[in-house]
C-alpha cells in the first residue's frame, strides 16, 4: 500500500523541516519526503492520495502518560477504546501507567497488556512498569524482569514513592537498567484528604486543599537524591511554580532530570473549581494564575520538556458525586492538540516547538524510535488543520469516559487523519 500526502505543511522537528513538503509512504515506512509535486510519479503503482492542503503534516504524537485502565477498570477505558481515543487526538504512540488492577508490577501483566494492545490496539502501546510492588512504596518491583518484558520506564503514578530510602534505591537500581523513573510528586501527609489546590478558592469553597509545597518538596527531594544516584528522573505532570524553578535549577547543574506538563495545567486555574464541577478535580490539582505563568515560562525556556495528557478516564459513577468523593483526573487525549495550539497562537512557543514536545522530544527521553518522519522511519503520521474552529462535545469522544472540563469550549485545531505504520487509523468525517 502506497500513500502520498500532498500539499501539506510538513513540520518534522527531528529532521529540521518546517515547510511545504510531500510525504510518500510505502510498506508502512516513510519512503520519501520532497518538494511539493516532486513525488507525484514515484511509488510505482498508483498511490492513494491524501490532500493535506491547509493542513499540517507531522509525526504522530506520543503521549507518555495515559491510563487505559485495563486490566481491572474496563468500565472506564480499555486498551481498545483508549487507543481509539488516542488516534482521534492525533496520537500514534502512548505509554500506559501501571496503576491497573492487578498493578503492572510484574512480567505477566506487562505481557498481558502487550498482547491486548497487539490484538485490539490501533496505536503503538508502550508499557510503564511499577517502581514498587503493588504501588505500595515498600519493596521494589521486579524491575529487570519488567525491562526484559519490554517496559520503557517505571512509575508508581497516582501515588508517589514516599519513602526516601526506596526512592534512592530505585534511582540507583534503575541506573543499571538504563530506564527513567517517572515520579508523581506529592507528599501525601501534606495533601491527605485534599481535593483541590490550597488557597483562595479552597478557602471559599470549604474544600480541603492540597498545597503546592507537597509537590515542591518531593521534586526537591528527588533532585537532591539524583545528585549521587545519577539515575534518570522524569517529573510527571508538573503543576507548581516552585517545581518548575527546581527543575530549571537542576538542569542548570547538569542533572539528568526531565519533566512534562499537561494541557489542563497550562490552560486552567483553580477558579474553574467554583461550582463544584468534579471534572475540574485532578491530581495534581489545578493551581493559580501565578503557577500557570511559571509553567508558560518553563515551556518558553525549555525547562519543560514535553506535553503529556495524563489521560485519566472515569465513569460518570465515579465523577457524579460530591466533589470530595469524586475520582481525580480527566480525559486528555482528544483535547490535547487544540489546547496545545493555543500556546502557539498566544506566542508562547512556535508550532515546530509544540510538535517537538509531542513527538521527537518524548521519543528522545524514553529512547523510542518514533517521533520522526525521516526516510525509513515507521509511517506514524498525523495530519491536522490548525485553523478549524469547533466546539468540544464530550459525547463525540472515542474514549469510553466523558469526564472533561472542556465540554463546550470553542477551540481551534482538528485532527483530520492519523496513520500508524502507514495504515489510516482515524480520519475525521462530519
Amino acid at each position, binding site marked *: 500500500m502506497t500513500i502520498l500526502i500532498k500539499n501539506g505543511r510538513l513540520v518534522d522537528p527531528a529532521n529540521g523541516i518546517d515547510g511545504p513538503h510531500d510525504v510518500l509512504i510505502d510498506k508502512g515506512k516513510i519512503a520519501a519526503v520532497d518538494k511539493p509535486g516532486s513525488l507525484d510519479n514515484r511509488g510505482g503503482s498508483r498511490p492513494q492520495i491524501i490532500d493535506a492542503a491547509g493542513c499540517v503534516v507531522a509525526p504522530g504524537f506520543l503521549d507518555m502518560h495515559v491510563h487505559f485502565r485495563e486490566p481491572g477498570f474496563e468500565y472506564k477505558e480499555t486498551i481498545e477504546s483508549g487507543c481509539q481515543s488516542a488516534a482521534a487526538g492525533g496520537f500514534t504512540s502512548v505509554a500506559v501507567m501501571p496503576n491497573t488492577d492487578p498493578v503492572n508490577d510484574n512480567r505477566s501483566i506487562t505481557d498481558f497488556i502487550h498482547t491486548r494492545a497487539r490484538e485490539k490496539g490501533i496505536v503503538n502501546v508502550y508499557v510503564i512498569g511499577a517502581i514498587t510492588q503493588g504501588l505500595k512504596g515498600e519493596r521494589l518491583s521486579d524491575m529487570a524482569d519488567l525491562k526484559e518484558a519490554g517496559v520503557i520506564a517505571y512509575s508508581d503514578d497516582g501515588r508517589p514513592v514516599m519513602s526516601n530510602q526506596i526512592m534512592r534505591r530505585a534511582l540507583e537500581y534503575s541506573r543499571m537498567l538504563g530506564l527513567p523513573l517517572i515520579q508523581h510528586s506529592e507528599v501525601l501527609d501534606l495533601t491527605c484528604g485534599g481535593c483541590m489546590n490550597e488557597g483562595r478558592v479552597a*478557602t*471559599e469553597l*470549604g*474544600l480541603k*486543599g492540597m498545597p503546592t509545597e507537597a509537590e515542591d518538596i518531593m521534586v526537591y527531594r528527588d533532585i537532591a537524591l539524583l545528585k549521587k544516584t545519577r539515575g534518570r528522573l522524569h517529573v510527571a505532570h508538573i503543576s507548581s511554580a516552585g517545581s518548575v524553578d527546581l527543575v530549571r535549577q537542576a538542569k542548570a547543574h547538569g542533572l539528568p532530570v526531565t519533566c512534562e506538563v499537561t494541557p489542563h495545567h497550562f490552560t486552567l486555574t483553580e477558579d474553574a473549581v467554583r461550582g463544584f464541577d468534579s471534572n475540574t478535580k485532578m491530581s495534581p490539582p489545578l493551581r493559580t494564575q501565578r503557577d500557570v505563568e511559571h509553567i508558560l515560562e518553563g515551556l518558553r525556556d525549555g525547562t519543560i520538556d514535553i506535553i503529556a495528557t495524563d489521560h485519566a478516564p472515569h465513569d460518570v459513577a465515579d465523577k*457524579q458525586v460530591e*466533589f*470530595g*468523593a469524586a475520582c481525580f483526573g480527566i480525559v486528555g487525549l482528544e483535547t490535547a492538540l487544540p489546547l496545545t495550539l493555543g500556546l502557539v497562537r498566544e506566542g508562547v512557543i512556535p508550532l515546530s516547538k509544540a510538535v517537538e514536545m509531542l513527538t521527537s522530544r518524548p521519543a528522545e527521553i524514553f529512547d523510542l524510535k518514533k517521533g520522526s518522519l525521516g526516510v525509513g522511519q515507521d509511517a506514524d503520521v498525523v495530519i491536522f488543520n490548525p485553523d478549524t474552529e469547533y466546539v468540544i462535545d464530550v459525547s463525540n469522544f472515542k474514549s469510553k469516559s466523558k469526564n472533561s472540563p472542556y465540554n463546550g469550549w470553542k477551540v481551534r485545531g482538528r485532527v483530520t487523519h492519523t496513520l500508524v505504520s502507514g495504515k489510516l487509523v482515524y480520519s475525521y468525517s462530519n
Partner: protein
Amino acid sequence: MPLSCRHILGTRELTRKDIETILDTADSFKEISTRQIKKVPTLRGRTIINLFFEPSTRTRTSFEIAGKRLSADVINISGSTSSTVKGENLIDTARNLEAMCPDIIVIRHSASGAPWLISRFVKSSIINAGDGAHEHPTQALLDLLTIREQKGKLEGLSVAIVGDIAHSRVARSNIHAMKTMGMKIRVVAPPTLIPLEIEELGVEVCHDLEKGIRDVDVVMMLRIQMERQDQCYFPNLREYSNLFCLTNEKLKNSKKDLIIIHPGPVNRGIEIALDVMNGPRSLILDQVTNGVAVRMALMYLILGASDDNSN
C-alpha cells in the same frame, strides 16, 4: 417580591436586596410564633423534605417547626452517615425524593458542594442547611436578624468571628452575608485554624482574642470541634481555652454595648465561659428563636416566587 435565586445554596449568591427581603419577611413572621395557635395556612398543601446526612438537633427541628407553622407537610429523613463518606447514591436519593414531588428539599451534608450537586438534578428548590466547611446560609441569615434586632442596623457594624474558621461553614456564610451588608469582619484564631488567603474574602486576621474584640460591636464565637484535637491544630484544649475562651476577663476592654452570639452547640467553658454564655450580652437563645422566623421567611419567599412563575 421574589428572591433573585430559586435555591438557597449559599449567602455568596444572595444580593443585598435578597437579604433585606428575607430579614424583613422574617421580622413579620416572628409574631406567629408568639401566638397561642402558632400556625398560618400560607403553605398548606406544600411538601418540604428535610434530608439530613449529618446529625443535627437545632437546625433540623428549626426547619421542621418553620414548615409546620406555615402549614406545609414536613418529612424528615436522616441519611446514613456511611453513604456520605463514599458519596454513594446521593443523586439517586435526591431523584427518588423528587419523584414524590416535594416543593423544597432542605439538605445538610458533610461534603462541601453536595447541595450544588443535587440542585443540578432536581426540579425542587434546595435550601442548604449546611454543607461541609462551605456554607450554612440560614444560620448566617438568622445571625444577621439577631444583630439587626439588637443594633437597629447592619451597615457599618464590626464583627469578630472567633474560633475554628478553617472548618466553619458558619464563618464563611457570615463573611459573605456581612460583606454584602456593609459590615466589617475580623477573624480571630490561632494561624492553624485560619485557612490560607482568607484575607481575599475581605476580612482582617487577628491572633489575639483580647485585642481582636476590643473595638467590635458583635462577637461571634464558633464551636471548637473536639474531634480535631489530635490533628495538631493546637497543642491541647487547655491551652486553646487559655488563649481563646471568651471570659469576662477577656471582655473587660470591649465596648459596653457589645453583643455575643454563638451558632451552637456550645462547649461550655472551652470557647465561652459559662457566665458569659448566660450573661446579659449573650443572644444565643434569641438566635434560636430567630432561626425559625428566618426559615419560615425563606420557605415562603421561595414558594411564593415559584407561584408567580407558574401563573
